């Protein structure tokens, strides 16, 4: 049974208009900037917000179809992890997790049993008796996760389920979440900001901007061939639109590139920041692109330094700390950027 959702929702000046399908066992990640409508889409699928037009159905079981059908959330068999947890403050952690099984008719002992085993899975068995207010932010998020998963819903909706977890716990919970998703065979819709979470957990990524789908596909495909600036920044690629003619691409916003494979018509041009070399003087040599730039911004990452460069076109470069010292990189410094033609990917726009 496949989840089909054709969602149109109007909220003030904002309009959400997108179509989604999620197959059994499939994990679809909804990725998009703040305010893109990810949470709105998730609420519409959960039944917390009726759609204004369109349809939500699980195969032949119609959940929402104006103006006739509207199945309330408690009869949809969905599990939701909310962005700000929404744990019940008056119940203990264990009772929070046992709430779903209880509400679906399980007896108290059985529900607690189930809840306890889930708390173990998320590593919080020892906090079972605590109140949500006494939990740290990350602990609360893990309880919310357990609470949604314990009912083994047909559709699992996760709104930034890992956002509040720290790096070390995240690794663990992410992989155990991955295992569980693989196990239960349901349909998962995952809203996240973190491209890594999406890449690791999702079978398919749907990129939403301004309430609309701008790109979708397998994680590797999206990562390799971003179609908007947002996606490019997300996956850490330099991305430009241009018009190809042979091995030359004239960029829409100024600048030109020489590429390895000849093409024609509108194309995307992409290359990773690590492919960019920085030099104090212009560099010569066959199939190589080189143009003057100015340092806008320097950020030290764990192992590399990312340099934002203004120019025609602007570009991101990843360099080693040694290069930073050698070139005395600091905002305002004029340099030359160079990219080998073989490093530049082009694909139809």
């Amino acid at each position, binding site marked *: 049974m496949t989840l089909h959702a054709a969602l149109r929702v109007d909220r003030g000046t904002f309009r959400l208009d997108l179509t989604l399908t999620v197959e059994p066992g499939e994990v679809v990640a909804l990725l998009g900037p703040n305010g893109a409508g990810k949470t709105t889409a998730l609420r519409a699928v*959960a039944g917390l917000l009726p759609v204004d037009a369109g349809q939500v159905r699980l195969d032949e079981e119609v959940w929402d179809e104006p103006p006739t059908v509207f199945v309330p*959330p*408690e009869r949809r068999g969905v599990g*939701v992890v909310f962005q700000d947890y*929404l744990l*019940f403050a008056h119940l203990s952690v264990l009772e929070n997790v046992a*709430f*779903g099984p209880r509400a679906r008719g399980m007896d108290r002992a059985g529900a607690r049993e189930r809840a306890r085993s889930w708390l173990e899975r998320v590593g919080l068995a020892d906090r079972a008796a605590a109140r949500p207010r006494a939990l740290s932010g990350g602990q609360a998020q893990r309880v919310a996760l357990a609470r*949604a998963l314990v009912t083994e819903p047909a559709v699992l*909706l996760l709104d930034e389920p890992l956002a509040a977890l720290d790096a070390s716990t995240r690794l663990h919970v992410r992989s155990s979440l991955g295992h569980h998703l693989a196990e239960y065979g349901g349909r998962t819709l995952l809203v996240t900001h973190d491209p890594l979470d999406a890449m690791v957990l999702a079978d398919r990524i749907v990129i939403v901007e301004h309430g609309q789908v701008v790109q979708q596909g397998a994680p590797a495909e999206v990562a390799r061939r971003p179609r908007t600036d947002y996606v490019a920044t997300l996956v850490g690629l330099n991305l430009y639109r241009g018009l190809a003619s042979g091995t030359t691409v004239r960029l829409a916003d100024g600048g030109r590139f020489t590429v390895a494979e000849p093409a024609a018509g509108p194309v995307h041009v992409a290359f990773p920041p690590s492919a960019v070399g920085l030099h104090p003087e212009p560099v010569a040599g066959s199939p190589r692109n080189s143009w003057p730039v100015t340092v806008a911004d320097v950020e030290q990452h764990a192992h590399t330094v990312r340099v934002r460069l203004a120019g025609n076109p602007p570009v991101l470069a990843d360099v080693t700390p040694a290069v930073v010292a050698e070139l005395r990189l600091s905002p305002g410094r004029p340099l030359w950027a160079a990219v080998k033609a073989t490093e530049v990917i082009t694909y139809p726009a």
Partner: protein
Amino acid sequence: MRRPTRGRVPLLVALPSLVGLAFLLVPLVGLLARAPWSTLGTRLVGPEVGQALLLSLTCASLATVLCLVLGVPLAWLLARTELPGRGVLRALVTVPLVLPPVVGGVALLLVLGRRGLVGQYLHDWFGVSLPFTTAGVVVAEAFVAMPFLVIAVEGALRAADPRFEEAAATLGATRWVAFRRVTLPSIMPGLVAGTVLCWARALGEFGATITFAGNFPGRTTTMPLAVYLALETDPGAAIALSIVLLVVSVAVLVSLRDRWIGGAP
């Protein structure tokens, strides 16, 4: 805790709150000062006082239960649904509050009395007659006290975040389960406040009770009725009875509230 978590109470709050407290409590001091202490014991012997006190507590508690059963759903309806004319309904709920209690009693007689709109059928078909019975006392008290519960609970419901009900729904809870297991506990402070108001108002009810249920010792003579009648002949006894009523009600409230709201802040 050793030191206050957040500095001292500001004067602008402390001053009026103390004046307010004094305003509510000094009259009580006046009563205590005037109480016939020397003869208090002898004035309070006799079975009537105990009888009236027991009747008062019983009827007020039953009336409160009735108000909870009918009033909490009503409050929910007013707070959480999109009923047309909700604003007017909400205002109409306050009617028994504004009505002078004696008129309220008359209104109840007009409806539930032996010849009342509804009462005549109750009487003819089921042989049930509420006036002059203990059940009538409960009905009169509930009528007068219910608005307090409804309005206080509605206010609490409006202040509660409805997204928790949404979370419960996604966990499979019907509206009823979500209401009982999520909403109700989260509005507990407001509900307790409303219940206290309701119970206390029912306990102090006089006008509607005597008009609708009459006054017969052991059956419908609650403490306020006893107090009122004592006032006619023996103000000292009336004050003594009032003090008994107050002590008992304060004791009940102190012990119950501690149990209901536990160690909450």
